[in-house]
């Protein structure tokens, strides 16, 4: 008790310093004890505050507290770091026993549903929630890496590990062709595209909610069709200051290298295939090796915050620093954010402000270089460069070969090309909620986001790139600005009467996104000193059309929406929502669309007749149907016939600006709509040891926006953006979580999920302006097509047979007419699967033992095919004279091929051991300044099981045009990281 006596004055000082006044004139004393609900252990230092007063105390080492109050009844606010804050009404002076529940477990109980929150048990739609403790750990550079494999129906794919490139995400498959498949990202209420994720410091994420079905996403109407990712960042808790540092450093290596011929093998083959001796420059260069290095990724974040009754703030700074495994590919991202909440007007008004600024610096490896017949990223150019070519000439200049058409020396490119980008992101928001009457809250929310992306590029003649040599150096700068504003006004009414529980909200929303920018370029520099920093030093007499340009376009969306959540006796739940959206990008008479949804749920275990059964600890059945619109992927101005500039024409004896009609216009453009039905079961059995969710859904996208092929004549261009076809997706998703061991010192949770997905193109033909459009077998990737009745990206391909006596590839003549027809609908083509995976799965076990914790992520997908473009270009000896081929080409012995056959089509299934994290939490009771310390080690991409022959089977599965092929990727790294997390007192 000595301690307690010492503590009291200290505590008083603290309270005073925080602006509390303490009154000694008390006439009633209440007392009690606070313990952890999990194991009943007592909790020390818990803050106890009397609501609407300045009175408070903290618990002693035995968890007890005493507090003098003027009168009863009172409401106590009991809060402690890591636990959910509780309000407890005290009506007598009898000692109370208070159980605090771990914050993370209560957090998963509250789900952000868009324009509000709901308790998980009241949900009627399909929503996955991942709380901070379940996020993937390690050298995370993008929040999506933290949720990979953590939610069923959500596919996160990372193509290569190029610094600064984030993963892609698809929620319940590909439901649109050009309308947009990227989900809406909502960060603390601010809506944005995927690039908004870059502004979120990974360590500052409290939870991620993913809205999957239409009844959940319909509230986001036009932008919700591809799903919604809602990120909630950490907030400070009242009565407690915090200071925390989290950091990690990883060492990144390339786990797999593609085998090309070395110099000796190249010349052996060269002699066989008649390569002229003049093409052999006698060196021995491993181009891949000299273009790669060990990479490093660092991640630091420092956050602090605090709060008192009615006020709290949190601030953080974060830095993500990446040095890529390919020479000169670096990325740095610095983020600062501050968030403050203030209550006023007798707690009736709550103001929340958010300010976030980030700066990213990119040193990019050139994305698109190479010879006319092979344009790829820089690293893939290392494969096609002859191993017998030296890096340097005898005089120290970079080697180049004038007898090869558009030769490039990839090392020279890596050393001399400058491609620097800086992006400044700024977003701010203000939310004001005012309690107008009991249960009725009026809200105003405004957010403003500005992104300035500035790029400088310099391609010197030294780079050996023909275009640069022709122009004696090319420099350009481009500046692109995004200005996104959103405002909404809402009214929320909550009412409980008897067994009826009602929560209704009505919202008006206005948003505008403006995109503008400019580009300037100069050529002909006498030296390379100023690079892109002084365009005026170039030869201005060489300024050409296209060397300068600017643009501006915008999109406005106006919405009216409403939602009613109604429950009866906690057992029967109903959600209805309706949204009416208008978008500027559509034709004059088609701007508005209506998007309703309805869903119901039944908490079966709350029924009286279920009280005696022993199987289910909880069981809920859900069903929902909704309509969502899509337009975000559609650029502005497509509905209009516009005139733009296109270079120069010679007329009347002089060159003048040439004006052209820029596109086929379609005044009938309208909303693409998705109709989705979802049914689900949430259950908990075996004394809550096994919990799970099983869902099934079907969705049909109608009025599919697409670049439909139209006949020339009469159209001046070959495609038009129109709403014609339809697309279907069906899926089943299962998530299971099994607490195999649940003891005080040892816990083992086995969790995992499986998703099955079936995609089908229902219709691609229809009519536009009353004229039939005949669009089927639309090329959608290398040998992949959109075919009615098949999944998108179906490989319809000619089958490999062998080779003829001239070593030319032979293929199967399916219809035996002695003609190999390579047309899109050719009878010689056969369907051989799709580029879309049919299933994805993940296994995420977590083991804790005393202070140790270990978690793993195993993730896989399969049932898809990949067309290995890179292998097809690097397997034919016809190009040996100017380049190199894979070692595997030797056994094939093909000189040339007229076909893109299934010889290059490979199984894309894989299983990846993606993450292993082992952590240790130190016991630090005795330290003066540190309350928590955890160190961890993470291995990423530790093993990959696949039959795929390319660098990595995890490729672009965006569903967009061109997916399903592998034209060479930036290597996917394997990384080893150590991390530290310190919480200061």
């Amino acid at each position, binding site marked *: 008790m000595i301690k307690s006596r010492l503590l009291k004055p200290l505590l008083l000082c603290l309270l005073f310093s925080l602006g509390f006044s303490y009154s000694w004139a008390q006439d009633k004393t209440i007392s009690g004890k606070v313990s952890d609900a999990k194991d009943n252990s007592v909790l020390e230092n818990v803050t106890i505050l009397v609501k609407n007063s300045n009175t408070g105390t903290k618990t002693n080492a035995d968890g007890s507290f005493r507090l003098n109050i003027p009168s009863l009844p009172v409401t106590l606010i009991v809060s402690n770091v890591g636990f959910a804050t509780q309000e407890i009404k005290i009506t007598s002076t009898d000692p109370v026993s208070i159980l605090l529940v771990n914050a993370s477990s209560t957090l998963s109980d509250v789900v952000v549903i868009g324009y509000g929150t709901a308790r998980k048990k009241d949900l009627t739609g399909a929503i996955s929630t991942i709380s901070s403790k379940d996020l993937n750990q390690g050298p995370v550079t993008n929040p999506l890496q933290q949720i990979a494999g953590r939610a069923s129906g959500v596919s996160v794919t990372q193509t290569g590990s190029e610094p600064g490139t984030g993963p892609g995400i698809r929620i319940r498959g590909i439901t649109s062709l050009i309308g947009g498949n990227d989900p809406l990202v909502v960060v603390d209420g601010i809506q944005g595209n995927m690039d908004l994720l870059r502004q979120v410091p990974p360590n500052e994420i409290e939870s991620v909610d993913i809205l999957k079905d239409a009844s959940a996403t319909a509230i986001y109407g036009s932008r919700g069709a591809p799903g919604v990712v809602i990120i909630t960042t950490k907030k400070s808790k009242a009565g407690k200051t915090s200071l925390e540092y989290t950091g990690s450093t990883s060492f990144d290596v390339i786990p797999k290298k593609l085998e090309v011929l070395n110099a000796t093998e190249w010349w052996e083959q060269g002699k066989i*295939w*008649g*390569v002229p001796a*003049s093409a052999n420059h006698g060196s021995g260069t491993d181009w891949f090796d000299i273009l790669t290095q060990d990479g490093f990724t660092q991640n630091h974040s420092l956050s602090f915050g605090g709060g008192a009754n009615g006020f709290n703030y949190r601030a953080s700074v974060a830095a993500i620093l990446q040095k890529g495994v390919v020479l000169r590919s670096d990325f740095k991202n610095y983020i600062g954010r501050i968030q403050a909440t203030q209550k006023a007007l007798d707690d009736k008004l709550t103001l929340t402000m958010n300010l976030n600024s980030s700066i990213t610096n990119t040193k990019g490896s050139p994305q698109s270089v190479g010879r006319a017949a092979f344009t790829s990223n820089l690293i893939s150019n290392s494969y096609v460069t002859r191993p017998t070519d030296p890096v340097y000439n005898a005089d120290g200049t970079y080697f180049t070969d*004038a*007898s*090869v*058409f558009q030769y490039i020396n990839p090392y020279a490119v890596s050393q001399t090309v400058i491609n620097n980008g800086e992006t400044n992101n700024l977003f701010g928001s203000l939310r004001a909620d005012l309690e*107008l*009457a009991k249960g009725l809250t*009026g809200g105003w929310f405004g957010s403003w986001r500005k992104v300035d992306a500035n790029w400088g590029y310099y391609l010197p003649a030294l780079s050996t790139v*023909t275009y640069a040599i*022709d122009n004696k150096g090319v420099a350009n700068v481009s500046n692109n600005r995004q200005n996104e504003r959103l405002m909404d*006004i809402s009214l929320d009414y909550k009412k409980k009467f008897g067994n009826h529980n009602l929560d209704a909200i009505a919202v*008006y929303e206005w948003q505008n996104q403006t995109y503008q920018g400019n580009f300037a370029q100069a050529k002909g520099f006498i030296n390379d000193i100023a690079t892109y920093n002084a365009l005026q030093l170039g030869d201005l007499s060489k300024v*050409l*059309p296209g060397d300068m340009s600017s643009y*501006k*376009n*915008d999109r*406005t*969306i*106006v919405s*009216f929406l409403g939602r009613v959540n109604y429950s009866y006796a906690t057992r029967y739940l109903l959600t209805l929502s309706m949204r009416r959206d208008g978008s*500027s990008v559509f034709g004059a008479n088609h701007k*508005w669309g209506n998007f309703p949804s309805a869903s119901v749920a039944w908490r079966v275990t709350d029924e009286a007749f279920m009280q005696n059964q022993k199987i289910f600890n909880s069981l809920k059945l859900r069903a929902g149907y909704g309509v969502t619109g899509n337009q975000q992927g559609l650029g502005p*101005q497509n509905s*209009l016939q*516009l*005139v*733009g500039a296109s*270079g*120069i024409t*010679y*007329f009347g*004896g002089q*060159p*003048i600006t*040439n*004006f*052209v009609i820029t596109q086929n*216009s379609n005044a009938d453009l309208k909303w693409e709509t998705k109709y989705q039905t979802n049914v689900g079961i949430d259950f908990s059995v075996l004394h809550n040891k096994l919990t799970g969710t099983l869902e099934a859904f079907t969705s049909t996208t109608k009025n599919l926006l697409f670049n439909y*092929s*139209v*006949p*020339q*004549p*009469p159209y*001046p*261009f070959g495609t038009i953006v129109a709403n014609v076809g339809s697309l279907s997706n069906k899926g089943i998703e299962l998530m299971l979580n099994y607490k195999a061991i649940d003891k005080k010192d040892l816990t083992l949770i086995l969790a995992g999920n499986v998703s099955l997905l079936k995609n089908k193109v229902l219709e691609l033909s229809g009519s536009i302006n009353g*004229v*039939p*459009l*005949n669009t089927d077998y639309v090329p959608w990737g290398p040998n992949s097509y959109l075919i009615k009745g098949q999944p998108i990206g179906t490989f319809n391909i000619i089958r490999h047979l062998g080779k003829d006596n001239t070593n030319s590839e032979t293929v199967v003549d399916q219809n035996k007419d002695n003609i190999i027809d*390579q*047309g*899109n609908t050719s009878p010689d083509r056969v369907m051989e699967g799709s580029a879309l995976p049919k299933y994805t799965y993940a296994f995420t076990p977590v083991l804790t033992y005393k202070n140790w914790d270990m978690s793993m992520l195993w993730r896989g997908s399969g049932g898809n095919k990949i067309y290995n473009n890179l292998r097809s270009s690097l397997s034919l000896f016809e190009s040996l*004279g*100017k380049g190199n081929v894979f070692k595997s080409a030797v056994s094939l012995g093909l000189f*040339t091929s007229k076909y893109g056959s299934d010889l290059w089509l490979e199984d894309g299934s894989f299983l990846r051991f993606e993450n292993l994290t082992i952590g240790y939490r130190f016991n630090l009771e005795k330290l003066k300044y540190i309350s928590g310390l955890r160190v961890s080690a993470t291995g990423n991409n530790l093993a990959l099981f696949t039959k795929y022959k390319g660098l990595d089977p995890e490729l672009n599965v965006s569903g967009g045009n061109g997916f399903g092929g592998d034209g060479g990727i930036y290597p996917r790294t394997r990384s080893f990281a150590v991390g530290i997390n310190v919480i200061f007192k």
Partner: protein
Amino acid sequence: MKKIVILLSIAVSAGWGCTKVDETVYDKYAANNFYGTAQGADVALAGVYAQIPGNWDGVGYAGADRGWYDLNSMSSDEQVVPHRTTGDWELDFARLYLRQWIPSESFINNTWNWLYKSVFTANLAIEQLVKANADPAKIAEAKVLRAFFYYLLIDDFGNVPFYTDNTLTVDKIPQASRTEVYNFIVTELTANVDKLSPTRGGTYYGRFNKWAGYALLAKVYLNAGVYTGTPKWAECIAACNKVAEGGFALHAGAADASHPLGFKYYELFGDVCPDDETILAIYTKADVVGRNIFTIRSLGGTDGTRILGYGAWNGSVVPKDYLQKFDDNDIRKRQFRFGPNPYGPQPSGFINYSIDITSLDNPGAAPNEGARDQKFFPVTPSSSGGASNDFPIYRYADILLMKAECLLRSGGDVTLAANLVTQVRQRAGLTALPGIPTLDNIYDERGFELSWEGHRRQDMIRFGKFLQAHGLAPAADNHFLLFPIPTAALNTNPLLTQNPGY
């Protein structure tokens, strides 16, 4: 409650005030407003001419690759791009030369799309010029341009979709027979050429003046037999005579040491096509208006560096059989490069091109195989992406040979025919042919005079030579006289009928 009502009404009025979702266009012009002005109408006409210079993606008449020019030149006996043992060049160029092309070839698709986009542009210009009550000469000019595109369409594809109104939907645009379109072209030209300006050069350089209009009409009549089965030799002669009224003469052929190829003759293919002989030219300024890649594409890499200062492409070559017909004294043979330099010392880095080509596709030709062509000897600005040589579409030497051919074919004045041919030969440093020229003499002379100018396929067809074996190309089936309608066009328009044999 009062508070609530106020707040609600603020919210509602704010909402009502902001329900506008009209689209604002900041960085382009709305087509209707733009073309409605007099200036817009002029620009619409200029826009049609923008279609003609050759450029990347196979657009334009001549100058770049994979478009109309390659389709009509590589399919003849005058040039081919062989695949190389060094791995360069796709095999589709060789397929053109070998008459093995298929409907999905890029050349065919590009040509079709270019021509129909050109027809759209011409229709647009005519519509706007008429609306703006423009100068009748300008309306006539746009109509002649449209006739020019339709002439190129029937020449390559036979029966083609025909429309003159951009608002028509595809079901209203039937595939018209070659004869129907031919009749339209003749009617349109005869009604409009006299309205065109007679000005040569200056503001009419690169444009259809009256003389270019008649040259086009002469070309259409010259090939009438191929298009409709009914020759129009007399009409062709009459049109040629009309061209002659323009006061054209053959440009001097004289030796000129200042020209890299040694003769003034090659000024015809230089920076500006001289308007004494040139009737219609394509203005070219690399990277600004079109480009001319023909010499750069032909020369070998190091030869380009040596002569021009940048790498050349080692692409197109002249087949041996074609080259060997040239007389050694013919100044037009100077356009070719093969063997050691006969005109002076052999500079260092000089590539000795062999006249023989061993293989076009598999394994391909060795790097130095095949004679090269420098007819369009690069003029500045130029780079490995192309030079700025203008390109003659019609010139007077062609008109003289056309008239001679018609005279011979129609039993006209053979002495006059011989005289016309002699004019062309003497300018090239050759003597007159002994006696009256035969049709084969005319055919060969056209080959000498007009090589690499885009006329060869049409000439070979008219003279019945197209399907015969030549060089490395074996004889071909009848159906190759027409190109197939491209696969992409058939896919999007089910009303189209493919040409027989494809």
